[in-house]
């Protein structure tokens, strides 16, 4: 991402929600082992309760065939989700033997700068906290599930037992204690960098702005000891930026797959970011509202 674009997206407080921090992630797909340690760490922390059996806030699937959730249920209802078998088509590559490609796509909630789920909520239970984390108030959520349908990334889940919608919380209670989210901490492939995208000094914002910074050892600003995490150099992209929600989860796209395929996942023929005019408004103050 160019410095100019970074300024546009992260150089100012969020124009709509005012958050002055935007926590985000950089995931190096080239290094993903497809081991689902992130999925499991998340599941055992957040979605091990009733009604959450097939709920994975963080999921990993083998692109291109693996999808979670799948939509291939009822032909009359394209939005009927199938959450079962979250890792169907694992390791099923595309192409004809021996010319094949596949990659593991790890996806937590994107905690978008302009989330689609938030305005869809009829009870106004979805909010962006001061760290830019998108949360659903479980006290006020009434389970209308408009957010579930609004999220283009299918990262909001309806819990039929509590009758509320639930989603990734970026482990905010752990962040408050100076710890990284569970999916980052447990990532045994060491492919994830976490931090504040709006902080020009944070490792993540430096790594995203300068694609050549990848191979430097990484000192996270969180309370953990220094962790040697090596990130591939090369362009940083968002997954499906064409949805226009400005996701806060960034990727180093896979090198081993045809460039045209990279564009489908990480740019949709837009060569990466949606570089449309996106004026940066003046800082939002409470008194303006």
């Amino acid at each position: 991402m160019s410095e100019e674009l970074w300024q546009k997206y992260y150089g100012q407080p969020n124009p709509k929600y005012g958050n002055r921090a935007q926590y985000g992630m950089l995931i190096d797909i080239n290094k993903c082992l497809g081991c689902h340690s992130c999925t499991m760490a998340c599941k055992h922390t957040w979605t091990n309760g009733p009604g959450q059996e097939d709920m994975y806030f963080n999921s990993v699937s083998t692109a291109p065939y693996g999808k979670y959730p799948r939509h291939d249920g009822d032909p009359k209802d394209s939005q009927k989700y199938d959450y079962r078998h979250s890792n169907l088509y694992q390791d099923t590559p595309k192409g004809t033997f021996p010319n094949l490609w596949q990659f593991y796509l790890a996806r937590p909630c994107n905690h978008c700068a302009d989330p689609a789920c938030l305005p869809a909520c009829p009870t106004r239970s979805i909010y962006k906290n001061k760290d830019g984390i998108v949360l659903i108030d479980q006290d006020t959520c009434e389970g209308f599930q408009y957010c579930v349908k609004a999220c283009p990334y299918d990262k909001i889940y309806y819990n039929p037992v509590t009758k509320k919608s639930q989603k990734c919380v970026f482990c905010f209670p752990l962040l408050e204690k100076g710890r990284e989210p569970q999916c980052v901490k447990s990532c045994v492939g060491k492919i994830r960098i976490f931090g504040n995208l709006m902080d020009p000094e944070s490792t993540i914002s430096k790594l995203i702005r300068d694609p050549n910074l990848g191979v430097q050892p990484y000192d996270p600003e969180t309370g953990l000891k220094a962790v040697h995490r090596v990130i591939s150099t090369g362009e940083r992209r968002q997954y499906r930026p064409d949805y226009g929600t400005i996701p806060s989860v960034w990727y180093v796209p896979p090198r081993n797959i045809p460039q045209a395929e990279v564009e489908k996942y990480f740019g949709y023929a837009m060569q990466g970011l949606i570089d449309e005019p996106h004026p940066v408004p003046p800082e939002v103050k409470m008194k303006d509202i």
Partner: protein
Amino acid sequence: MSTSRRTFVKGSLAALATAGAPFKLAGPALAALQEPKDRPWEDALRDQFAGEKIVRTVNLPNCTGSCGWNVIVKDGIVMRVEPPYDYPDDEYNPRGCMKGQTYHRRVYSPGRIKFPMKRIGPRGGGQWRRISWEEAFDFIASEIKRISEKYGKNTIWIYPPVPATGLVKQGAGFRFASVNNFGIGTFYNWYGDLPLAHPITWNVQTEEHEFKDVQNTKYAIIWGSDVLQTRMPDAHFFTDVRAKGVKLVYIAPYFDPTASAVDEWVRVRQGTDAALALGMCHVVVKRGLTDEAHLRKTTSGPLLVRRDNGKYLKQADVAADGDPKTFMVYDASSSLPVADEYFSDKPQLTGSWEIVLKDGSKVRCSTSHTIFLEQLEDYDPKTVSEITGVPADVIERIAIEYATAKPASIWAGTGINHWYHGDLMGRSVIALGCLTGNIGRNGGGVSPWAGQYLMRLSPQDYFFPLKEEGKPDRHRPVPLDTAYVVNGPTETMFNKEKLWRQIRCIWAAGGNLLGEASDQSNLMRKVLPQVELIVSPEIEMSTTAQLADIVLPVVSWYELPFDITTTPAHPYIQLVEGSLKPLYEAKTDIEIYYEVCKRLGTGDIFKFNHPEPAIEHLLATGGPKVKGITLDRLKKERVIRVNLPSSPYAPFTEEVSGKHKFKTASGRQELYKDEDRFLQFGEHLPVHKEPHTATPYGRSKVWKEAKKERNPLYEKYPLVYHARHTRWSVHSSWRTTEDIVKLDDIGQPLIEMNPKDAAARGVAAGDWATAFNQHGYVKARVKIREAVAPGAIIIYFGWQREQIREGHWNALTHNDINPIHETYFIPNVWGPVSGHFDQLCEVKKA
């Protein structure tokens, strides 16, 4: 603000367009800007972390990862585990995959064994009677006494788990067998994990580089080792160096996960890896890229070999008073054979001469390198391409890349071990490492990654206790090699009287023997009916427990009071400490052994009934690698690096710098072997032989002969059958854990095949199909994947008895024993290596 609102409306419209939701929102999302104090629900999430107690321990599965975990306990229940980030070397943080993260689900598994049980119906019928521990101990002891008297003590057979499952726990099995003089099985060779090429070439069990040493490499070949699936805690070392620009090459027949994460995938025909390695050797030699100094100083290259009988020329051959154990080299200045001196740069590396023997007769001798060079002529890239299916230009290119990158490393795995001729594949790959001088260098080497064997301390005194303090006599078990126990004896075996018995009692000490054994049909049909007692100490109802006569509940790792663990590729000794009180009636293995010993009258010799004194004993008698490490220190530090000569550890650094010799008879790396059996089978030097079973050509023959023949078995069973390790289980451990199984496709055994093969057999994805051959069959659903090479099927294994609809994935495997593997017998060091990848099958719609 106006701008903001405009953007907002636009944004929400976009969102509506995406969602197609039939409503719109007029105002801004005021809720978004509310202060946190207005969101009391958040506190519920914060509070869930209150009151947690953390215990640092290690998981002990047979993946041998020995990953440290912080076990998080609340109100006496394990909530979850987290990586502790406490390895002194930060490169090793974090360790542990999704399986380790899910172990607590096994602790609380619905299949957990709660109390001792005795079978009341037929074996495997699932009818049990709850008994007390006293009753269980008494019954086992009386049965063991009865069987010992009737058939002999060595028909009581302890099948030990691997060292990674805890030194105290595993060692207690050995100790139990030792003090009672029972038979004991082997695991490392019989699993097929032992790279026999290592004892053959270096006379070591196995030596490999610490995984951190990947960071020092300039070029890495991952040879038949799907590290992304099978070595998750260390796989990042490979992807890390790749990110830094080091080229990774993966050599394997299938498009495995690892193939998708490297720079080049070299697709080789199954079982022809030796040919590929020798083809690369050929290119290295022809291009003049050989490291002659390395060959001359440290390998068997310059040693003279008699061309009349293929034996090494010894001093006793040429001089009347010569030493029969001294090897000879050719000295150019005196034109005479002289005694070999290790690390000398004088001897001729190539050449043939007429040597005068002590009786005056002349015999033609060549250096062994000369013979190797002659043999390499058969492996030109064109021929190798014909054998392996790898294009000639690719062979040429990767050979040059490997030979010119210094240092370059090879990381080999079970893909080239689990074969009848796995030793030849390993030796060929090692030859490539020797030719290019990569052995004994940091960032180089040929490291096998398969299975577990090496303990970073000497367990001698604990495993085989002294009969009397101060005297060398020890209590020892009778080694009954598992391969023979399952297969029956062979004509060519090292010592039939000693190594084989029809066993009458199986003590499956923490291993799922009956669920995992290759050659399943033989074991079930021939061996098992004659076994009168099967004891299964287990945590969950595994296949073995289901088929046992007595099932004993054992504590899980989180209930274990203490244990210690070391692994080879990760040079730490770690303390295992449980965080829970034993659940139900579970006991530790060591206590169970002690109680049985007490009833057999050997309790005093067995001595330990609790892990703590056993750990102290192990550390005190463990030798130099654990010098200075005590239980107290471990309790404080939890993880301590063992004393090793280099960091990161690389084997043979001292040998290749001339500090001391290799442990072989010649003191050199023996690429050339002159034992009768090697000469008899034409395997004195690494050669490519077609697979013993899984080949369309002549079986176990060199290419010149093999290509003229057709394998009659292949006409009937034209698919190579590979039952393989998956990321989702460690053999059968975790295979029944719901959280894990749910992430493994549809959570069932799957016959995975190429669409071409499926179409030819009229099978569609999701169909039930049977894979079968002359030995047995397995019935499972079909998954269609281009990643599987045409002409092969893969089944990811580990499924328990109740999860397989019919048959068994190992029912199709049968391991003929390779006589080369029987040249010597040292338990778990030199013995029959299972070739369970060397199998064929056919698939039909069920």
